[in-house]
């Protein structure tokens, strides 16, 4: 077992699958010789050649669109969008084609592509480099959307995403790329998609989050634990389709739920979870649901980004408020 940070885990998963499945190809800007601006693909072009690790021209629409063509012809393209602020030109191909190629040909053609992109704020990156677009994708039928929150889950979920016969949007929280290391067995073992991971058990309230925000969420759980409050922490992991069963189960026990995400509040994925609670968990709820999210503003440039991002303080405050209700 090696000690890996998240970006290294991504790299290992890509390498494993390229090694074991000749259909896997990578494409994107600066992923070859340069190994990716975050080094997610470092060494892979050397190892697998420039035909399978394709340094593309600067053209996100065509990166997504050619990946659709490759996937339909039996390759398993893993396309990288350099930063999620540049992912919008891919939406047309993802929504109008990738997500529905199987459906519109009644299974004759499929689209097993993965669209990888770093996402999120917190690394003092330039403008348009800190976006959290997961909700845009999570609304699109036919897609899977995945966001890992640790090196181990990055490894196992990325393998699952590549092996999945349908398109997967795989968003990697930039802030976690090098934040911490974990023992990860490079054994090609995939984790299951479509299920949440319960990172911490607790009976007093449920904290639901995903991606980088699990840092703050878990820290908040620690703060609460110090006060004797048991917070259950659920990592969404697969954002679409949503494993509400796990969340409803948890809330059935705790009666309280705080949802934490980095994207803007309105229409964020937290809304879908809260809506499900309002529909199917309302009798369990002993207090109003709370969302601690990015504000409904443009992610600010570096100097204010940590005032935008949900903090441990905000999560703890929301949890306390939830717990005050008796």
């Amino acid at each position, binding site marked *: 077992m090696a000690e890996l940070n998240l970006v290294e885990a991504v790299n290992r998963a890509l390498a494993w699958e390229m090694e074991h499945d000749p259909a896997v190809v990578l494409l994107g800007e600066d992923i070859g010789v340069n190994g990716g601006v975050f080094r997610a693909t470092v060494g892979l072009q050397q190892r697998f050649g420039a035909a399978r690790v394709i340094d593309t021209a600067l053209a996100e629409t065509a990166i997504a669109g*050619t990946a659709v063509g490759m996937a339909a012809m039996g*390759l398993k393209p893993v396309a990288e969008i350099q930063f999620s602020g540049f992912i919008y030109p891919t939406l047309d191909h993802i929504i109008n084609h990738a997500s*529905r190629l199987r459906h519109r040909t009644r299974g004759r053609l499929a689209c097993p592509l993965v669209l990888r992109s770093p996402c999120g704020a917190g690394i003092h990156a330039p403008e348009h480099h800190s976006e959290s677009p997961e909700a845009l994708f999570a609304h699109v039928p036919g897609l899977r959307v995945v966001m890992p929150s640790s090196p181990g889950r990055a490894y196992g979920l990325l393998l699952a995403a590549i092996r999945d016969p349908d398109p997967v949007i795989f968003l990697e929280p930039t802030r976690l790329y090098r934040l911490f290391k974990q023992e990860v067995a490079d054994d090609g073992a995939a984790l299951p998609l479509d299920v949440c991971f319960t990172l911490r058990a607790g009976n007093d309230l449920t904290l639901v989050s995903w991606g980088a925000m699990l840092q703050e969420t878990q820290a908040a759980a620690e703060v609460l634990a110090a006060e004797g409050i048991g917070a259950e922490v659920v990592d969404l992991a697969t954002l679409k389709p949503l494993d509400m069963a796990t969340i409803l189960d948890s809330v059935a026990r705790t009666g309280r739920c705080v949802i934490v995400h980095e994207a803007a509040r309105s229409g964020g994925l937290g809304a879908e979870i809260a809506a499900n609670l309002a529909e199917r968990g309302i009798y369990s709820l002993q207090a109003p649901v709370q969302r601690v999210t990015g504000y409904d503003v443009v992610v600010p440039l570096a100097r204010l980004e940590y005032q935008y991002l949900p903090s441990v303080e905000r999560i703890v405050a929301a949890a306390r408020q939830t717990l005050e209700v008796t």
Partner: protein
Amino acid sequence: MAVVARFEVEYTRFLDAEGKATQPLPPFALDPAALIPLYRAMTQARLFDAKAIALQRTGKIGTFASALGQEAIGIGVASAMRVEDVLVPSYRDHAAQLQRGVTMAESLLYWGGDERGSNFAVPRMDFPIAVPIATQVCHAAGCAYAFKLRNEPRVAVCILGDGGTSKGDFYEALNLAAVWQAPLVVVVNNNQWAISVPRSQQSAAPTLAQKAIAAGIEGCQADGNDIVAVRHLAQQAIAKARAGGGPSLIEAISYRLGDHTTADDATRYRDPAEVEPQWAFEPIRRLRNHLLRLNAWSAEQEEALVRECSEAVNAAVEAYLATPPPTAADMFDQLYAALPAALREQRAAALHFAPHDGGDHG
């Protein structure tokens, strides 16, 4: 100042409007055994087209995009392809699709509002119609890349309209395919109109073929109503692509004799007086004249052909109309390879609320 690059765009025509040769013909164009299938296919496509419009008018299918007058492009291009090549068509390319083996019944099913129409029994790897303009050029470039990577001697052939050449997808895909030297042939059906927007307002470029220059590849113009020219240039481009010579662009100049679709009324924006003279250039009459000149065609053959093609159309219509309707479950069952657990309840609800007769209650 020094000139550092020079480019030319060439125009090719073999048969003039009367079907007379304007220059030495390629061998296939002197061979009735090669020409008659093309003639037959164009005739079949046109009869299908007319029937589809009629079916739309009587509410039996939805909106339909006629290829009237542009049959030489679809048949010329598709007949230059091999079975294992892949066609990546637009919504106006049923001529090419039929040539590839898509059935008329399948086409009607699609235009009749049923996804099963894109589940072709024969060209299993051909793309379904692309409605979002020019997106298919990217898909075709991706297909071509896959062929090249796997060392398969296959070519991706993509058709789009003159309007489509204004869209970013077209340029991005051509540029990438050129860098990749991928086996891709892109054919522009320049039928002079993008709904109501005439070619002159679509681009200030005097030819659309010259858009290839932006990608550093070859672009040429064909008389798109001369199936000999279309097929010849398509053959050359496909052979070049197959041999590793990279992508090409062919601008096939034709004319949209009909409305944009059955939902359109072209008299709103186009003087019928402009259309009238264009009938003189249409491709079927032109090839017929050529065949007549070769003494390879007769009134009897014509009559028999029209009869056969009409019967085939009618049989297709019957097959189409006899197809049982899709069910609510069809909305769910091919969305993913396996139905995600999260969708089970919705699928059940859809079946629960489905009208008992399976009909459409819009």
